[in-house]
């Protein structure tokens, strides 16, 4: 139950009944809706007691940002405006979070790189802001098509990164993202990534809890860093500040601060595990020796490929990674115990997920790791392409016509 009958019912500023994260995510009755990923963002923000959002146009995330603006007009979001560029937006959002607001924004592809300097700053400032990244790839040459190359650049920013497969995942991850990121012992930014167009612009069935309930509001005074609101003592007024000094205490402070940000991401594991119902999702025959390790749309397509391979008499399975930072190391090792061949299908040219998988399975798996298939620049990944890759490796005849 959300509240015991003796407890006082609490409402947020928008007049929604405040319920526990567990109730909102797991217990509240859900009804079926048909909507795009962008609309799912709106529905998640609507139920998250969001205080502030700053927006900037870039395809394919613009619609999600418009819809958050509508929520502001309707009173569900406290502060909303359009910034001057993604660099400005991410800084404005940082200001919002420093001043004690639960803050969210959205971006895509080149916008991500325009904003890049801000992401390690977010992490170093220990603000639990949320970025919904609708991946589109980066320039040059100019492209606005689906591709997730930009995620590669975000891996070491000190932000948590979760990857949604579809609109349902995205809805649940946005809500859970705030809950996990705001835990005092975590309190780092969260990037909820999703493949642009494939999810943002595609309608699908999604189960939603009622919209008259919402997450408990953010309590900025539980932050491990002082809120910049002049209501509590300031964080630094020191006789000899350690920052910017050329001595070993200064160096050690800077280094330990960065280690601490990474440790905070590690401390998010049990919470992410609970609210995401595990850091990975497994699909297909548990005994299969062919395993697809994938995230996002590539995981969805791999599931289809597993069905096609079944028709060929080939057993395969999918290990879908829900979190990239923290990386589900133990889960992946366990899930690939019986694997002989691991395929990592990806929507980018560099194969950043393959690199991650190789890194964490090094000396922990005897399987061959194959970074294929790989599509980019807007290409789709039909399951037949994945099947073809498997048949090729197995030395079987490729019958499917692509």
């Amino acid at each position: 139950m959300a509240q015991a009958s003796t407890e006082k019912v609490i409402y947020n500023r928008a007049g929604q009944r405040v319920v526990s994260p567990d109730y909102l995510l797991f217990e509240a009755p859900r009804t079926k809706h048909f909507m795009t990923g962008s609309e799912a963002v709106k529905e998640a923000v609507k139920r998250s007691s969001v205080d502030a959002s700053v927006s900037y146009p870039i395809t394919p995330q613009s619609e999600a940002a418009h819809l958050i603006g509508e929520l502001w007009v309707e009173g569900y979001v406290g502060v909303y405006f359009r910034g001057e560029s993604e660099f400005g937006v991410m800084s404005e959002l940082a200001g919002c979070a420093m001043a004690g607001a639960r803050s969210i924004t959205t971006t895509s592809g080149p916008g991500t790189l325009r904003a890049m300097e801000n992401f390690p700053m977010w992490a170093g400032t220990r603000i639990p802001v949320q970025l919904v990244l609708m991946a589109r790839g980066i320039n040059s040459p100019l492209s606005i098509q689906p591709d997730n190359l930009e995620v590669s650049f975000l891996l070491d920013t000190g932000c948590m990164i979760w990857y949604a497969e579809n609109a349902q995942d995205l809805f649940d991850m946005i809500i859970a993202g705030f809950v996990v990121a705001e835990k005092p012992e975590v309190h780092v930014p969260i990037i909820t990534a999703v493949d642009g167009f494939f999810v943002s612009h595609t309608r699908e069935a999604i189960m939603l809890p009622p919209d008259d309930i919402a997450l408990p509001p953010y309590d900025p005074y539980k932050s491990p860093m002082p809120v910049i609101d002049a209501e509590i003592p300031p964080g630094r007024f020191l006789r000899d500040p350690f920052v910017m000094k050329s001595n070993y205490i200064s160096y050690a402070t800077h280094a330990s601060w960065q280690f601490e940000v990474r440790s905070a991401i590690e401390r998010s594991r049990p919470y992410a595990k609970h609210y995401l119902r595990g850091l990975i999702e497994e699909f297909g025959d548990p005994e299969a020796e062919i395993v697809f390790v994938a995230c996002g749309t590539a995981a969805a397509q791999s599931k289809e490929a597993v069905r096609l391979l079944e028709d060929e008499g080939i057993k395969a399975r999918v290990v879908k990674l829900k979190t990239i930072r923290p990386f589900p190391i133990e889960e992946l090792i366990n899930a690939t115990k019986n694997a002989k061949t691991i395929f990592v299908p990806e929507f980018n040219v560099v194969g950043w997920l393959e690199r991650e998988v190789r890194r964490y399975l090094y000396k922990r798996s005897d399987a061959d790791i194959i970074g294929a298939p790989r599509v980019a620049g807007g290409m789709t990944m039909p399951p037949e392409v994945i099947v073809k890759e498997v048949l090729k490796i197995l030395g079987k005849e490729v019958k499917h016509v692509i």
Partner: protein
Amino acid sequence: MSYKIYQVNEALREFVPREIIDLEERATWGNPKRGVMDLPYAKELIEEHSLCAGCPESMAFRYILASLPAPEDTIIVNSTGCTSLVFPHIALHTVHSLFGNQNAVASGIKRVLEWRFPDKVKDVIVLAGDGAIIDIGLDCTLQSFFRQEKITTICFDNEVYANTGGQESGSTVKGHVFKMAPKGKQFEKVPMWQLAIDSGCHYVARLTVSSPKRVEQVVKKAIYVAREVGPTYIHLYTPCILEIGLNSDDGLEESRARDKERFAFFEYATPEAQEVINRKKEEGLL
């Protein structure tokens, strides 16, 4: 008023450094009439600044902090450069985020504080150098003016990138030789005060720090106007005496010399701003 946050916990009092106890007992809180005349008597909000001996920027810091009408409810956003070295010495809520994004961060803070505390006045002030405000951060600076953010931006113009070793900035005077301009600067000093007017600031002032009382008046006007009307901008000459080859006791004379030329006192106010200024004068606050 939230100056109670500066009260020292009784159980810890004997372990707390003297300057922290002084902040509680001898700093001026909750008094909008505070000003530079308090400097010899009150505890200052800046402790042992880390700038070079005789740096006019340290004078600017001291006068500005002494003039804030409500330091207990003031948030200062700074940027990278000489100024960023000073902020850990300041007893207020301060932010260093990135080089050049100061007006963007300040915009977010101001808007959220207005929303979280609709019945309180929280002043948000940007203090940054000419490189941060006019070069790398010009976009964020001007855009915050266009958006009519209710913040006060104060530029410490030393006409050079001093902290990185003396490179030309947009604020350098044409012809001046600095690093990265080995043949002398090729274009005119950027008239930032004029850009501020054209971009929607309601109160703009350009001056040196040779007169503490004038700095106090300008700071108070800019903050009062920003509270009620919109963005305000102060352009202060804070020469880098090292980079222009002066001695540590030459800062004041250098400022006085520029009072007569490119930093001659200049003030601009829109009618809405003038109305606020007149009212504050009647209330005895200016």
